[in-house]
């Protein structure tokens, strides 16, 4: 068995046998406690500044952001963004209840389907699970209501994110997922796939010079919904 061969070779090198029970218990305890390491000071700031930092970092990474006061304003913000970019008012949307509950009929010219994305889709509207201010990163865990293809196949991805879901560091976003989700297969919290997305797709493979729009979306637009009174700009 290669498994035993590999484990034994490692143990031989470490000059010991399999770990005794007390040491295993110690390592298990470390995994349960999952100690946090140094968290950079940049994201440990008051709530309004965390939101500002998130937005500044998305923009630094060539994404764009609009901020709206209420979920009801999202359809208008989508329509406005598409027209600014000269894009047809047509998109594929994640079948997420929060997105579906929005007053889309207010904007009758918007056409959309709720499903996974296909290669022919030009614009997708995704539900943002969390935002990470530290680097302007979106956390997008896979879920029946949040298909992964929406993050990949369309040329333009629009992500709707509540301000209350913006954290400082990555660790806080993982803790949210840990407490909120239970996986139907493993019983743990990890879904099949979690994408941390920071800006639109790019490549520097040609002469180490950055070009936007490699295989994923060329544009990434985030609509931040101000649902958190503590996070409003002072």
């Amino acid at each position: 068995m290669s498994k035993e061969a590999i484990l034994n070779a490692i143990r031989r090198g470490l000059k010991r046998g399999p770990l005794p029970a007390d040491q295993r218990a110690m390592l298990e305890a470390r995994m349960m406690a999952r100690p946090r390491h140094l968290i950079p000071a940049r994201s440990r700031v008051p709530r309004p500044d965390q939101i500002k930092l998130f937005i500044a970092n998305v923009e630094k990474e060539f994404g764009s952001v609009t901020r709206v006061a209420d979920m009801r304003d999202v359809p208008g913000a989508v329509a406005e963004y598409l027209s600014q970019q000269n894009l047809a008012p047509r998109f594929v949307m994640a079948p997420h209840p929060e997105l579906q509950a929005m007053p889309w009929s207010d904007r009758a010219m918007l056409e959309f389907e709720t499903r996974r994305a296909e290669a022919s889709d030009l614009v997708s509207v995704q539900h943002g699970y969390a935002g990470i201010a530290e680097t302007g990163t979106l956390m997008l865990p896979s879920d029946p209501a949040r298909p992964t293809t929406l993050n990949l196949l369309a040329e333009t991805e629009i992500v709707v994110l509540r301000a209350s879901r913006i954290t400082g560091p990555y660790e806080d976003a993982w803790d949210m997922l840990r407490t909120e989700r239970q996986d139907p297969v493993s019983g743990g919290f990890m879904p099949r796939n979690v994408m941390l997305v920071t800006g639109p797709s790019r490549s520097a493979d040609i002469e180490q010079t950055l070009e936007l729009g490699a295989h994923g979306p060329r544009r990434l637009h985030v609509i931040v919904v101000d649902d958190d009174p503590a996070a409003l700009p002072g």
Partner: protein
Amino acid sequence: MVQITSPNFKENAARAIGDAGLQKALGKAKGAFLQRRGDAVARLPEFEQLREIGRDIKNHTLAHLDFYLETYAANVEAAGGKVHWCSTAEEARAAVLEICRKAGAKTVTKGKSMISEELGINDHLEAHGIEPVETDLGEYIIQLRREHPSHIIAPAFHLNREDWEKSFREMHTDLPKDRVFSERRDILTEARTKLRHRFLAADVGITGANFLIAESGSSVIVTNEGNGDLTQTLPRVHIALASIEKMVPTLNDACALLRLLARSATGQDFSVYTTFSTGGRRPGDLDGPEEYHVVLIDNGRSNMFGTEFQEMLRCIRCAACMNHCPVYGVTGGHAYGWVYPGPMGSVLTPTLIGVDKAGHLPNASTFCGRCESVCPVKIPLPKMMRHWREREFERHLSPVATRRNLGLWAYVAQRPALYRMATKLAVSALGLVAQGKGALRSLPLASGWTQGRDLPVPEGGTFMDRYAKTKRGA
């Protein structure tokens, strides 16, 4: 399969230095990496502390790797995935082929993976009638040109824009011959269009892994293009290739290392896509692969435990060492003659393919120490290269002239009176030859050295003479 040409490093390097196209590409690219990493590090005041944390996390994991590998494998299987333990490259190739065959695969898309290069996955699949398609932009052109990556994160580091245009015109024969590539973006767009069809048609997607996470049984890929994500999302089967040292215990440990990786590699604060995969499609999911396999590979790494090279297993493959290496900067990656170039390659290659084939790669170093000073997990690369030099010497693998001269030097250096006499003689002899000039343009028996530079003539006697004078003065 990468043909091993490491034994010919000297000839490879000489050829590389004379290659105008390569020198142009290297000249353009080098500065960009250095500048970007420097800026990213300057933006994060805690970076130096994080390097120590990164080193400690990896050391802790390696010291208990047997435990973490078993925990990891159990968690992969709890999430519906399958782990294939492989001691050797042959086992890993066979495991990949078997999964592809069971899936009835005709084409396989691939994300960028250096372990795939190490194993020679592409040739193996091709030999069995399955077409592998590289989808990372750099890997794609390398595959079109039937070459190998010259850099671990920038495979086409050695190519200029003209080379891209030429290869695309030669290979994409279905497109109009008179099309114009006025910007780099046009090259990118053509590749995007070509590869989109391949992504949709593939039966299996193969990626590498930057990290494996024990607590959740996840594999992590870090990319900018999105090709790795398309590779692992669209086909029915996803295979992640990962060597055993990619392990970290928890997501929080991974967060600490991820803060180091992109900054050290491309000088980004964070890469565009950092994606965690755990098992296959869940009930109700509308997309994603139905099967998730991890091919877990040793291929010589377990032999590094307990040796002076164990610390090399901390490497997170960021490429900062080669980006900052004056030798890599003039020879490029192909001269190193196998998969891993630069300082990390000089240390790793002899352990993986043998000191007899690659034992002299560690001589390709000026021992300037920049590699160690930028390594995000503080691997003492120069120290390890010295260990290899010692082993090479002990095993009589170094050239006769080198061995004889080193022996002579050791004899003299261990006898202070003789050493002083010899240096005194050398100083006056050089003074005579120079006839009052400050530097020598050529020197008998040392033309190899003086060909590229002048030898400054010693002035004012030997060190011991001057030391004796100052002592008297004091």
